[in-house]
């Protein structure tokens, strides 16, 4: 039982490049989330999903896209990377009434 896994762990992007952050959970959770955490700050919700085929925007969705074709996977797409997207990205999942389980995070630097 791996829980929530994220790849890659680290990535450096040049301005204008695109990439996909992968997230997979093996707990059969309906809910999945993407957060970003800037240094010394709290978590900001980017997008979330309440089930396969259903996604919704969080607080800071601009510059990102998501899809949820299966229960297990919830990839986050960055288009036209900008320095403001330098952050640590966390994926999380939960059942309807429990706490969130977090992945280990992806540290992204855009230069």
């Amino acid at each position: 039982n791996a829980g929530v896994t994220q790849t890659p762990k680290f990535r450096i992007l040049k301005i204008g490049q695109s990439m996909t952050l992968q997230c997979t959970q093996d707990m059969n959770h309906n809910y999945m989330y993407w957060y970003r955490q800037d240094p010394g700050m709290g978590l900001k919700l980017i997008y979330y999903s309440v089930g396969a085929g259903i996604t919704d925007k969080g607080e800071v969705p601009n510059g990102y896209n998501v899809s949820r074709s299966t229960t297990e996977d919830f990839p986050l797409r960055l288009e036209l990377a900008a320095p403001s997207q330098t952050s640590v990205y966390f994926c999380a999942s939960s059942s309807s009434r429990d706490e969130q389980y977090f992945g280990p995070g992806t540290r992204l630097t855009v230069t």
Partner: protein
Amino acid sequence: AQTVTQSQPEMSVQEAETVTLSCTYDTSESDYYLFWYKQPPSRQMILVIRQEAYKQQNATENRFSVNFQKAAKSFSLKISDSQLGDAAMYFCAYRSLNAGKSTFGDGTTLTVKP
């Protein structure tokens, strides 16, 4: 929309002493969940304790306990017999009963002095 406020950006405690981290929230809902998460330097977010709003009894997990005051919308975390491994950033979070997303506070960085 719900809001969660952690008014103490930083706290410090002597090893073996007790410390209390504050959290207040704003909601019009009557039933919900509250959580405290710990984020050590490894960055991995770990659940410390949870509280269901319909339960009057304060949750306890070993050295960690909460003081849940529903009317005051307050949810503080008490850490007893603090250990060096307790040093971390602590986040308070609110979750609606039937909504998918949670609202997190901005966090409190706890330093434990030997």
